[in-house]
């Protein structure tokens, strides 16, 4: 029922307006993506304190924080009355998720690649002290990785990447979902104080997102500590 309602509302918004909306937010996200402060801070923390819980936090907080930051302009810039609001919120949620993924991507990839590269270097050093020449290392150790078992390693790396990304995306989705739900409540005039309900739901969403971010950060820092 809700999905049907959303679909109807998306259609009533009009594609032209939707495209404009998407373009505007794409530009906004690109600008934010280029804005280096957040990412640099995250990377610095990651480099200096790989083992602390702080190491995992920035990666997952970035999408959540962005979602929050973008909720406000969304409401201010597009005060679409009545029926269109929840549809816009759905589009907006999709865009936020995209932005979240984009923001987390470079940091995650760098961390994963660095970890992978470090392991390889240590193993190559060990191989050298075992008397293996560079040619032997390439043939027996490194080349071996790209065949058979190494495919597993790549797959594992890819899975880990998504695993690291997912909590951030879920956090953003929770935030946007609660906002959308609030908008729907507004639309349907559910309860006598819809604004209060929306605020409450949003708070719950923020708490859930924060808890999820902290949990996943702890999990990642633990995993890093064990060097896996």
């Amino acid at each position: 029922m809700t999905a049907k309602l959303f679909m109807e509302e998306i259609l009533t918004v009009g594609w032209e307006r939707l495209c404009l909306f998407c373009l505007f937010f794409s530009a906004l996200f690109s600008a934010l993506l280029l804005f280096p402060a957040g990412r640099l801070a995250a990377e610095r923390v990651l480099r200096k304190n790989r083992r602390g819980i702080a190491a995992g936090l920035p990666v997952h907080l970035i999408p959540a924080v962005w979602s929050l930051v973008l909720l406000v302009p969304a409401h201010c810039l597009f005060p679409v009355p009545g029926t269109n609001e929840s549809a816009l919120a759905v589009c907006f949620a999709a865009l936020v998720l995209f932005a979240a993924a984009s923001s987390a991507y470079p940091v995650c990839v760098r961390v994963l690649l660095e970890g992978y590269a470090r392991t390889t270097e240590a193993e190559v050093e060990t191989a050298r002290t075992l008397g293996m020449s560079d040619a032997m290392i390439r043939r027996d150790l490194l080349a071996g990785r790209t065949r058979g078992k190494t495919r597993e390693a790549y797959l594992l790396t890819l899975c880990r990447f998504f695993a690291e990304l997912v909590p951030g995306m879920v956090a953003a989705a929770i935030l946007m979902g609660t906002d959308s739900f609030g908008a729907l409540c507004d639309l349907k005039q559910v309860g006598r104080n819809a604004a209060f309900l929306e605020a409450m739901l949003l708070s719950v969403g923020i708490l859930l997102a924060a808890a999820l971010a902290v949990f996943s950060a702890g999990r990642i820092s633990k995993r890093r500590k064990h060097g896996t």
Partner: protein
Amino acid sequence: MAPENTKDLTIRLRKRADGTGKALDVDIRVSGGNLCLFGDADSGRSEVLRCIAGLDKPDEGRIALGDRVLFDSMEESCLPPALRRVGYLAEGAGLFSRLTVSENLRLALSGGGREDGSSPEKHALKEAEDSILRDFGLDGLGGLLPEHLSKSQTVLALFARMLAAKPSLVLLDNPFRDLGGYEKADILEKIREKLTKERIPWIFAGNDRDEIYAMGDLVCVLHEGKSEGTKKRDAFFQSPETLAGAILSGCENLAPVTRLDAFHVTVPDWGQVLCFRRTEGQAQKETEEEKTKEEPDPAKAEEKSGAVKAQEKTAHGEAEKGLVLRRNEGEDIALWRPPGERWKELPKDIAAVGIRAEDFLLKEPEEGSAYLALPVRDRKIREERSTLDLAFLPGAQAKKPLHLRMQKSEMNKNELNSVEKVYISENKILWLRD
């Protein structure tokens, strides 16, 4: 493979600090015996081992194992790690994680077994691999991935892999850190036996006293990237010469001193002004060491001896047998000097004194030995599993307590509670440089 002289080891290297490592200034020359680099995690021990293994390049120096020069900055020679035949077990190292134990061994066997890097026959490889697995008690584990091994099995497999490459020297960087108690002692013994049997010299780096004692004939303390001289193991543990060495060797009672003159130091932490003179035996030992460095000058020696005698007469002339060396609030701390004994001046660079907790005596030593008597104030007794620890202030002005340790089998708590004075033989006091 031609036999080679692996007894003499020269490690002389300097390296500036860079992004990854500490600055190093190391000079170690060993002729026979296995060496332990004793230092904490920041001492630069891993960096030294990495330089020996060829993984890092020093700025200058020389590293030679017998007749083989591994690195020489003057000759601009630097052997690559693969040709050094130096096995290196880095701290926290692991097996190649995606390969089974057997595959790990096979790589080492095919790499290190032959100078030209060609692969040995398959059946020969298999035989060698089985034999190594048997030797290290890893039979039946060859097909397992490293993640399925226990910690002790991993350590054994790492050693097995390292020895499979037939090294001429083995470098061990704190390899037992993940092992506990009995497990560690067992594996340590196994490894030592194996290396001794194969006649492979080793350099062990770590910060655990028991491990150092078990693994080394010679000990070299590394402190902030600098080597502080090499001593025989027992001599080091009995009389470390530096503050860092004393801390590492487990000396509990350490205090900085200020040298007042040739025979007196103040020890503010213990509220003492102490007078110490090393006895003839010690002086003689040191003189012999010095003789190798410089020719003795008889005129100077006579002059020095005269000066000492003069000082003795003026400062301590009143006591012929027991010299009163310190007066503090009416208490005398006496250092008894056997008549006619020749004493030597305190070293100029003395920075601290140390007394080991187990070196205190509760009874006055017999005549004929020099000793220091200390009063016991503000005592606190702590009971441990097999020992009693007495913490006390050696005087009213003392700021820091001294610790005395007794075996429970030797004394009970009540007896220790009634002790009024403790004694320390003069030759048990450690004179420490910075």
